[in-house]
């Protein structure tokens, strides 16, 4: 099996991706590896706008027919946008997990960015799993 791992994104060992813009906001989603491992995604629970995420803590849930998986925050910050389309159409995550982001946050600690993985390190981790 092969997985799409765009080189312009940063990753975590928990299979979330993140893209950081110039204003210090981060867009967060799950990786192609994650959506393929989960199978048919049928439910997504995301935080509300204004709630605070803490790096490595659970911020939501993604469910397939037979499994429930926590989403872990790659970075800390306040939620400024939520992709509400996923609530009605969670299968979008199977179709394109990079176009269909989950939340956008305004970062509270930019030093945490250094702890994220580049695409080649993340690809190595996929092979090990």
């Amino acid at each position, binding site marked *: 099996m092969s997985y799409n791992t765009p080189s312009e994104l940063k990753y975590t060992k928990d299979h979330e991706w993140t893209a950081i813009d110039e204003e210090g906001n981060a867009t967060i989603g799950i990786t192609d590896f994650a959506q393929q491992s989960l*199978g048919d995604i049928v439910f997504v629970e995301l935080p509300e706008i204004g709630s605070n995420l803490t790096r490595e803590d659970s911020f939501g849930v993604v469910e*397939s027919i037979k499994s429930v998986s926590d989403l872990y925050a790659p970075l800390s910050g306040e939620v400024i946008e939520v992709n509400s389309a996923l609530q009605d159409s969670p299968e979008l995550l199977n179709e394109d997990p990079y176009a269909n982001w989950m939340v956008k946050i305004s970062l509270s600690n930019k030093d945490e960015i250094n702890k994220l993985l580049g695409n080649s390190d993340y690809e190595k981790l996929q092979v090990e799993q």
Partner: protein
Amino acid sequence: MRKTVLHDVHENKLKAKMAPFAGFNMPLQYTSAKLEIAAVRNQAGIFDVSHMGEFFVSGDETGDFINFMITNDYNKLPVGKAIYSPICNQEGNVLDDLIVYKLDENYALICVNAANIEQDWNWFSTHALNFNVSLENKSEDYSLIALQGPKSEELLIEVFNSYKEILKNLPYYGVHANMNDNIIFARTGYTGEDGFEVFCKNDTVEEIWESLLKAGATPCGLAARDTLRLEVCYPLYGHELDIKHTPRESSLSWTLKKSNSNYLGKESISIKSPDSKIVKLSLEKLIPREGYKIFLLDEEIGHVTSGTFSPTISQGIAMARVKNIKNMQEEDLLIEIRGKKYPAKLHKRPFYAGGIKK
């Protein structure tokens, strides 16, 4: 970890995602549970369920022995029919659920759950000593393929053309055995759809599996199987059924037959007033999962025994064990999910009707 004969076909040829179940490494899904479920509801799917156990009973007290072991009434069955039943201990609690196939007047096949093969074998063997019967455990020699879905009859006839008339006329819960060919066809299953279960010797199973695939059946894994059975509210041992509860407490009152004069657990079952019961619940948006707590307003009254997302009706569905409260008000029923309580809908009938021709 044990393997079925088809293990390498699943893992290497069909690239299934494998998972442990009842001590066996079994296919969980091949492509997508959603597609596999749809295949069974609309076309035909095949499952390798060779992990299940097969016991054969023969001897002139076969009928009386089976009736002593099960709560349902085997003796009223004609040859060529099968019956579903729980088996209970002396306390009236459920040890397993199974299907008995009446192959001949004094010849029966019992199909038991994989997780309980050893326990059931010991239980049957012990009680067989009091009857003029002989018992054989052929679980290691037999494989079992379930072909399920509205196109099942057509596909099975394509593969077994010499059995065309027999298969066409086999009624629901009918069975036909050809012991010279070591093959048994039964119109039984675990999905709520029309379909067959084919018992065969291990050395023929791969050819049958491949022929059914070639005829157009979709290979389906245990994830699809579990959701399919939950959509039609069939119980699963270890979930809705367990050794702590009687059949009456497990939605199986219909299997307790007065006409069966003396079976294990009969008296205990008749005395015990049910403490709990199994109910069917659905949620519009969220997905109930095994272990989630059930509340009646503020009072915790039970837990989910099986829960999943049903792609067929696009809802979260569950069976749950709750206290045996009379006149439960549906609007007061709640399921707790990640610390929050959500209103659940109480169902009298299964979530999905299925397509069985009874």
